[in-house]
Every structure is written in C-alpha cells, then in structure tokens.
C-alpha cells in the first residue's frame, strides 16, 4: 500500500503543444522559456505603458527591476558596466522569472536543469573572456599572474589561477542548478509524505499530514527567497567576471 516516492519525475522532459510539439521535440522546458520571455516583455511593456510620474504597481515593479539591475551593473563593473546592462538585465530577469515561475504549481522549473544553467554560465564566461581579450589584447593573460610575484612561484600560481578561472562556469552553473533542484525535491518529498500518511493511516494520517503540509508551506516562503537570491547571485557573479575582464584584477 506504500506509495512510491518519485521525487525526480518532476524534472522529466515531456513534449508540449500536442503532436506538433512532439514532432519537433518541443519540450515543456522550451514552452516555459517562451512563456517566461513573454511575461518579462509583458511586464516591461504593460508596466511602462502608462508612463505615469507616480508609478502604479506594474510600473513600479518594472522600474524597480530596471533600476536594481542598472545599479548592480554600475556598482560591480564600474562606468563601463552600462555597456553590459542589456545583457545582465536579460540574464537576471530570465533567471528570476524562471526560478519564480517554477514555484507556480504544475509548472516546470527551467533552472532545475543543468543544461540550461550550464548554457548560461558558459555564455557568461566566454563573453567575459572575449571582452577581456578585446579590451586588453594579449595583456589579458597577465590576469593569471599577479604582479610582484617571485618568478620561481610563477608556474604554481599560474596553474592555480587557471584552475580557478576554469572552475567559474562549473560553480556558476552548479550553484543555480543544485539550489533549484534541491528545493523542488524537498517539496516533493514532503508532499509525498502527506499522500503516504493519508493513504496508509486513514483518519489519523489526515491529521498527521498537517505536519509535512506546514513544512511545505514554510518551504514555499524559503524557496521564494532562494529563487530571488540565486538569480541575484548569478547576475552579480556575471558582473564580477565582466569586471575582472574589463579591469584585470
């Protein structure tokens, strides 16, 4: 009578949009991305449509999002950060909406897949490396050799710095992916406790199921924090890598 606990089933990709989607392998992940982009565009377009001096709710949300990312770019990268603002804004809002959208019941969390987060992280690192090479030319490689270093230590430090640089996309992608996946697994585990208790213990089970339910409610609040925080961390790190590329050290 025990209900099997299938916590990973929620991350399985299925095709969306019926037979048309199935024929081109259009998954629910792709569909979610399209929806998220539409939501972001809708927020910006509809929010800014009134152009009120005293903003309404939507306009305030759109302006806050814009202002927050704009300040983050300038604080983290410097004046040059303005050039990267469109990129960071896209990145941040995409991840933020992806994380938050995953908290809506029955919706898929795109950032719980390593393929998505790794794609974003590699994009950030490759961009930062290109920006560094373009700004500084071959002088960019002095990034791996701190100045004032005794020459006999150079091979060791260069190896360490290169490994540290290469570890960036890994840590960037795994942090977001692991946080989002872990949160949703915990949701599912508590939820299946509820089902199992109600199924096996009858009336007492229904009473006891209040425990896991309360935990899931508390987890929802925590996951809202994690969703926003991880999007912020991802964007801040992207800014810091771009800062390093622009300024070297």
């Amino acid at each position, binding site marked *: 009578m025990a209900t099997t606990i299938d916590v990973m089933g929620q991350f399985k990709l299925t095709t969306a949009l019926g037979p048309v989607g199935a024929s081109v392998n259009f998954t629910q992940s792709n569909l979610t991305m399209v929806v998220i982009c539409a939501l972001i565009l809708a927020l910006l377009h509809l929010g800014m449509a009134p152009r009120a001096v005293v903003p309404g709710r939507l306009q305030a949300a759109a302006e806050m999002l814009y202002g927050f990312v704009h300040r983050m770019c300038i604080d983290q990268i410097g004046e040059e950060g303005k050039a990267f603002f469109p990129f960071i804004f896209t990145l941040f809002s995409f991840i933020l909406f992806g994380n938050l959208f995953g908290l809506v019941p029955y919706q898929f969390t795109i950032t719980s897949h390593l393929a998505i987060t790794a794609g974003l992280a590699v994009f950030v690192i490759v961009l930062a490396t290109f920006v560094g090479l373009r700004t500084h030319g071959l002088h960019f490689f002095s990034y791996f050799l701190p100045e004032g270093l005794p020459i006999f230590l150079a091979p060791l430090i260069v190896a360490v*710095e290169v490994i540290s640089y290469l570890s960036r996309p890994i840590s960037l992608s795994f942090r977001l992916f692991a946080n989002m996946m872990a949160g949703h697994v915990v949701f599912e585990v508590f939820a299946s406790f509820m089902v199992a208790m109600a199924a096996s213990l009858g009336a007492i089970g229904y009473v006891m199921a209040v425990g896991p339910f309360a935990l899931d409610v508390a987890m929802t609040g925590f996951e809202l924090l994690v969703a926003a925080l991880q999007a912020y961390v991802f964007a801040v790190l992207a800014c810091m890598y771009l800062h390093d590329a622009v300024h070297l050290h």
Partner: protein
Amino acid sequence: MTDAPEKGADFDRRLAEARQRQGLEKPAEPGPVAKTSLLGIGMRVGVDMASALAVGAFLGYWLDRVLHTKPFLMVVFLLLGGVAGVRNVWRLVGPKRPGHQE
C-alpha cells in the same frame, strides 16, 4: 597623579597610532563581503571550493590520459585544485589589496 586622565588619553592615542603602523587596524573598506548579503556568501563558498577541486581532478585525469603519466599528474592537479578552491574563497572573503580599484 592629577594628570592621570591625560596620560590615559595619550596612551590610547599612541596605541592607536602604533596599531595603525603595524597594520593591525583594518581599514574602513571591509572588502566585498559587506557589500553582498551574507546569505549570498554562504551560498557561494561551498560550491566555489568544490568546483575548483573538480576542475583540478578532471584536468589531472585528462592530462594523464593524454601524456600517459598516470597517476602522477592527477595527484598534482588534485592538490592544485584544492589550492585553487581556497584561492576562490579567499578572493571572496579576503581583504582587498591596497590600491585595488573596485
């Protein structure tokens, strides 16, 4: 004994000066930690360390296969990966070097 308070104040001043000279007083700029939220730091530290170790292990394994030096380079790069992990964390929480522009 009437000048005891002045002496005390003088001592405090000289102590502060001496500590400044020895670099014991932290400058007002506390590094990047204060700017980011502590929760964000906590989320980053563990993954930063582990990922560098993983990259070191992978590089060592790959170079061993290419250069047929098994298992020598893997040992070396595993250690270097650990060092790089600590370097990552130090970059996050350590003090900024003087003259460093943020």
